[in-house]
């Protein structure tokens, strides 16, 4: 193969060995999660004995997950001892912008969840509706476009209005699916 760097390593290219420190953190978190699940599973009611207990498979899955997490930690420690390392993923540099985006999306969803209103206008026999989803989405999209596209405010706003209007029309009138908010 001409470009050895492109050699395939699995269906998901990014999956595989991480830096040993990251694998260790993951294994500790997974052990904690699986221990918690095991405790919860044991505490579940058993209306018809052990064989049909609702906590049976969750317990088995959590126990085996715990073993896998320990194996992951062992691999990580062995690789650490051998001085093997994998660089941090490229997008670690963009972590600040990622956090900003995640927070923004969180606020967007919370706003749709909390604010709920709808207005309707009748144009002849057609009833046009617009609600909190459209308004919140236009504001949110304008901010995201401003931050990541970097165009002028009026351009970002125009794109937002056109896109959200299009989406709302398709879902509300073509597929008759209610919108959130």
């Amino acid at each position, binding site marked *: 193969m001409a470009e050895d760097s492109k050699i395939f390593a699995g*269906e998901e290219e990014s999956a595989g060995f991480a830096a040993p420190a990251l694998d260790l953190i993951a294994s500790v978190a997974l052990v904690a999660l699986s221990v918690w699940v095991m405790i919860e599973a044991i505490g579940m009611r058993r209306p018809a004995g052990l064989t049909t207990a609702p906590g049976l498979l969750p317990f088995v899955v959590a126990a085996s997950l715990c073993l896998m997490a320990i194996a992951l930690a062992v*691999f990580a420690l062995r690789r650490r001892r051998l001085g093997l390392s994998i660089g941090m993923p490229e997008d670690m540099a963009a972590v600040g912008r990622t956090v900003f985006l995640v927070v923004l999306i969180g606020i967007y969803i919370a706003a749709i969840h909390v604010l709920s209103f709808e207005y309707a206008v009748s144009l002849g026999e057609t009833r046009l509706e617009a609600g909190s989803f459209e308004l919140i989405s236009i504001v949110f999209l304008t901010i995201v476009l401003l931050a990541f596209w970097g165009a002028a405010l009026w351009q970002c706003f125009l794109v937002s209005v056109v896109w959200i209007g299009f989406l709302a029309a398709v879902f509300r009138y073509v597929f008759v699916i209610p919108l959130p908010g």
Partner: protein
Amino acid sequence: MIIDSILQALSPYLVLVTLAGVSLGIVWGALPGLSTTMAMALLIGLSAGMEQATALSFMLGVYTGSVFGGAISAVLINIPGTPDAVPTMIEGHALAKRGEGGRALGMAIAASFVGNWVGILLLIFFIPLILQFALEFRSWEMFLLSILGITVCGSMAAGQMPLKGWISGWIGMLIAFVGLDAMHAVPRFTFGSLALYDGINYVAILIGLFGMTEIIRVLPQGEMHALPTAVGRIVPPIRMLGRYLKAAVRSGLIGTVIGAIPGAGANVASFLSYDIGRRRAPKVEKDKWGKGSYEAIVCAEVANNANIGGSMLPTLALGIPGNAAAAALMGALALHNVVVGPTIEVDHPGLIYFIYAALIVANILMYGAAFALIKPCVWLFSLPRGLLMPLIIPVCVIGAFAVRLNMLDVWVMFGAAILGYVLHLFRFPLAPIVLGVILAPLADENLRRSLFLFEGRTIGYVLSQYVGTVLLFVVILIFVEGVLRVRKRKPKSGGQGA
């Protein structure tokens, strides 16, 4: 029934819907960063408002179109639109730089067309056989089959480190346990919240993992600047394809078989076929490999498109999605009360024939639409990522909400996106999570039912269930193979390795 299904798929309305799906799929697949699975996941919500036949035609059109679409950006801007287009990028862009971009794209289109045919024909041939076999499966076999699906998917998704694939699958199973248990209605991991009694919807997980995660991951990375190479005249080199017929048939078989393995999708298919093609190519052709070989394009494109038919095999016959895109299709079908699996022919007579017909129509339309859409795609490549990706965020929100008209699903989607991002940073694969979420309820119910039936019986009786014993053996074998694969890797100091 067969003729009815074909006639239905050929009705002008459904042909138009399929054409819309294929066109959207081609454009979507061509845009770097937008994957086939992402398209399929986002469209589940939209399909909720469609009739069953319309939803199927549309989604199969998108599936067919987007797998090919990746080749366009791969050849013209040296960025694979979808990960399976990397081999096409290596060869196609080298040809494009020599002024043969149009011919390379023509070859990719023709190869995709052939690949789809191979996949569809093998699907039609094998489904009745698998269905006949699958009808014999009882609780014990269904439990083992579910575990096998998650295990194989985990093993294939993280080739270097299958352990991480299995962990992802197991996390997916844990997510699926939230809610009332199906047998005794005992609440599990609901924290006293009534909203969680209904369980976690896997469509929301799918949209979060493959839609929102991609946006969170890719958008903050900044712009990719790539100037499209001149396309030139797009020639469908049918005569040239005839020269590579042997490679095409071989790649089609590889693509279909790989597609039928849960977790192994178009990426494995195209890379494996590309590699096998290189080894088997005559000396003259082998020398061109990596520098612009038409045969290499045929190998990769036939395989990744044949994969579509292959992925439908376990999805329709066993209810185990062949890949994440097929899982999305399953989700769309579930919205129309269609549960796929061994009894599909009994529960939904004629549906399988309609799916065959819809795939054939989508393939024929893909051939035509691909030629028409290459130039508009070149224009789309000039649009910045910072403009395109934010537009998908509201689609993710609507998609998650539309399934059950429930804001909880939107929050689940958001949570899945954050989980997906964190798992990506820790280099865990995401597809096994989806398989875990889908298959865990099946595994849970069937394990308990079979244990109840086995109560008081000897271990000899359990082992005398031969199909189950074979499946159990295969599950153990996959774990052993995965462990051996990691152990065989020779550690290199300062580099990657186990």
